[in-house]
């Protein structure tokens, strides 16, 4: 976004957009900030609601939440898709999320401490206020200007010019500040951004008009100066709006992970932030918790889910002596872990280094707006100074020459150009946001439009990462009921899926053996559900749990559930002629099965993060523009390297930070729409450039020969601005 560089760009890019600036922040942007926060005590809860979209949704959510004990009030913000809940301090987000799920809304908890910073969008309101002032001034000055154009003369004209000056000069001084500041910033570093000709035109128009007014001249350009400010501020505000929505939503997503650990010290358990852990500390990891550090298990036995790190869909056994890495999820039993690497040395950090390397290897993308302004700014200045020089030489009249060069600057001033990109990007990202896609970077749409190859990750991306039983029909009813009864006692993901699938039989003396399974008594007989060797069954070659009942063993097979909309999205991509690839860290069998199911002919299994990066580099070296869709830590470097990248909201912080677009809902189908809308919006941007160039081709020669009047300038400016805005709205 050229228009925003300097003044706005610097402030935002420091946040989530550029992981390369701080590799640690790339992997755990929220860690440092949360380290400074105490345990949350606030009674205000924030939840993101990606699927809320209408008045009925708002009523359902607000009434549903307000009916809960302890909830004082709830208010939905539909623009930002979030609900803020005022509640008594014992109410937690964990109480609200199931209620919302019951009402049919997907919800994620957000960190309220972080949101207070984004809620008051100071800069947005500041721009809006300047826009309001410029609008007010524009209307009044235009009223007076129309009177002058339609024939007011002599004293009346001078009076009108003076009143216009009284309105326009303070307005320009106040409302034009964003452009002046940004132009000054870019001049100081020796660059000619788009804001330099803008500021020059505004200042020159105002001062020449003031001079003409003092000498009771015929033409004053006050209306042009104010109109220029107004239209450009409108573009600037749209641009800001898109960024602000994306930024606050991205920060919300970052607030989903809370990096705390339970440290054991002298037999006492205490909650500390991860940054406070040192090598040699013992931490307790509860079932369902994420490993905060790299370490070695000292006590307990359990299973760990490594899918986010490696893409493996099968949990691995863990007992004393097992190496665990930060980011893995402990499934069944509590574990004590001795820290062997914390902070900079942990595997998370090594991943961050990989991301930093990938970021630096990525070719710098020049946006359409940047290349347009690069060609445009020098041309405008040359034209204007050329006209000044020529008329000074031809007539020897300094005042006339300055008038001509000001007219050229005003007419060529990129009113339409300043609106051309923001209007389209706002329309497109608004459209995609309603479909559940968050565009984090303005140029992501342009890059998405160029994509000719799509690389998928499997676990957590094409699949939801939650297993569902596949062969329940093969099991006898009694066995199924026993299995469900046993499964209800465990929090293992397979057991939880099984417990939901059937109505349970009554099992007594239930006991969970961490790392192995659950056992109990059914009608006086011992029954077991768990690992093959523990139950005494022959292991199958896919994800399964085993049941021993009445001297018989049964295998319950599981498959990861396909993310909804994946088939639609893949079909649409194939129809669009894109090259599709599946790169997974998982074992060969499930990857091959998935590739076959979706009809993806190119696939690879068992890929390490560095190998994914190598594959992507190879593709990009062949000239492909790659869209990477992934969610795990193992994808992060690939996401950062790819031409453009998408990650689901369920992905790790790091993956979301590295990607350009975040899929807010579960459904994958909007990705196909995104590709289509991106192509369309790039076409609109080019059309808008062509439109504003066409206006200039007509108006600039008139200005150069000295035929431009304030009326002509006002017409060219407003008509071209309105045309490009309407063109942006044509987006379907």
């Amino acid at each position, binding site marked *: 976004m050229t228009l925003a560089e300097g003044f706005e760009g610097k402030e935002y890019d420091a946040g989530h957009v550029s992981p390369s600036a701080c590799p640690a922040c790339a992997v755990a942007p929220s860690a440092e900030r949360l380290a400074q926060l105490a345990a949350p005590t606030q009674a205000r809860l924030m939840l993101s609601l990606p699927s809320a979209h*209408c*008045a009925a949704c*708002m*009523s359902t959510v607000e*009434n549903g939440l307000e009916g809960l004990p302890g909830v004082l009030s709830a208010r*939905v*913000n*539909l*623009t*930002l898709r979030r609900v803020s809940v005022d509640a008594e301090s014992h109410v937690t987000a964990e109480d609200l999320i199931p209620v919302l799920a019951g009402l049919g809304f997907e919800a994620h908890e957000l960190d309220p401490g972080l949101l207070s910073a984004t809620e008051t*969008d100071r800069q947005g*309101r500041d721009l*809006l*206020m300047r826009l*309001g*002032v410029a609008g*007010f001034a524009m*209307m*009044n000055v235009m*009223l*007076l200007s129309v009177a002058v154009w339609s024939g007011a003369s002599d004293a*009346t004209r001078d*009076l009108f010019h003076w*009143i216009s000056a009284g*309105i326009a000069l303070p307005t320009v001084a106040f409302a034009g500040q964003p452009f002046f500041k940004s132009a000054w910033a870019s001049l100081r570093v020796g660059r000619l951004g788009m804001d330099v000709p803008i500021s020059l035109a505004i200042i020159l128009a105002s001062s020449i008009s003031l001079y003409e007014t003092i000498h009771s001249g015929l033409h004053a350009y006050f209306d042009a100066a104010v109109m220029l400010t107004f239209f450009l501020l409108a573009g600037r505000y749209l641009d800001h709006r898109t960024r602000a929505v994306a930024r606050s939503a991205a920060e919300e997503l970052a607030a989903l992970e809370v990096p705390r650990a339970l440290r054991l010290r002298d037999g006492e358990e205490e909650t500390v932030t991860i940054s406070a852990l040192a090598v040699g500390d013992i931490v307790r990891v509860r079932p369902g918790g994420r490993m905060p550090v790299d370490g070695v298990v000292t006590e307990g036995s359990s299973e760990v889910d490594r899918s986010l790190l490696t893409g493996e869909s099968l949990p691995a056994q863990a007992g004393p002596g097992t190496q665990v890495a930060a980011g893995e999820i402990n499934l069944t039993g509590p574990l004590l872990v001795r820290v062997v690497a914390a902070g900079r040395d942990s595997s998370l950090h090594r991943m961050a280094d990989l991301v930093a390397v990938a970021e630096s290897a990525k070719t710098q993308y020049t946006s359409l707006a940047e290349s347009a302004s690069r060609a445009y700014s020098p041309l405008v200045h040359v034209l204007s100074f050329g006209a000044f020089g020529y008329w000074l030489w031809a007539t020897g009249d300094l005042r006339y020459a300055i008038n001509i060069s000001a007219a050229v600057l005003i007419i060529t001033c990129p009113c339409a150009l300043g609106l051309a990109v923001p209007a389209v990007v706002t329309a497109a990202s608004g459209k995609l946001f309603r479909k559940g896609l968050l565009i984090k970077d303005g140029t992501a749409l342009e890059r998405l439009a160029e994509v000719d190859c799509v690389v998928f990750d499997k676990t957590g991306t094409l699949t939801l990462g939650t297993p569902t039983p596949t062969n329940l029909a093969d099991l006898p009813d009694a066995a199924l009921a026993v299995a469900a009864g046993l499964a209800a006692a465990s929090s293992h993901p397979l057991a939880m899926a099984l417990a939901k699938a059937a109505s349970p039989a009554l099992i007594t003396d239930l006991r969970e053996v961490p790392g192995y399974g659950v056992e109990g008594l059914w009608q006086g007989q011992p029954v077991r559900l768990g690992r093959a060797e523990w139950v005494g069954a022959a292991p199958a070659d896919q994800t399964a749990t085993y049941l021993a009942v009445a001297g018989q063993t049964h295998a319950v097979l599981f498959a990861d559930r396909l993310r909804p909309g994946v088939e639609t999205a893949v079909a649409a991509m194939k129809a669009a002629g894109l090259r599709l690839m599946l790169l997974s860290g998982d074992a060969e069998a499930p990857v091959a099965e998935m590739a076959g199911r979706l009809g993806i002919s190119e696939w690879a299994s068992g890929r390490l993060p560095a190998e994914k990066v190598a594959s992507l580099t190879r593709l990009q070296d062949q000239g492909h523009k790659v869209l990477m869709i992934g969610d795990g830590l193992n994808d992060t470097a690939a996401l950062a390297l790819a031409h453009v990248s998408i990650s689901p909201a369920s992905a790790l912080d790091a993956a979301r930070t590295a990607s350009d677009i975040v899929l807010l809902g579960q459904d994958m189908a909007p990705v196909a729409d995104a590709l289509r809308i991106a192509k369309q919006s790039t076409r609109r941007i080019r059309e808008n450039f062509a439109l504003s160039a066409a206006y200039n081709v007509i108006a600039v020669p008139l200005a150069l020969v000295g035929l431009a009047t304030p009326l002509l300038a006002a017409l060219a400016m407003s008509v071209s601005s309105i045309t490009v805005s309407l063109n942006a709205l044509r987006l379907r």
Partner: protein
Amino acid sequence: MEILAVLIPISLFLGGIGLAGFFWALKSKQFEDPQGDAARILKTDYDDHPKP
């Protein structure tokens, strides 16, 4: 033409009221959720009686 001396200040004054109203709306955060406010008017919850 003397009427201008009256009309111009009046038009500026009225415009100024509009601008002040805009500032007030901006300060009282009425632009925070345009989409939600547009939808909220369609709710029937408090049609019969005001919100308690």
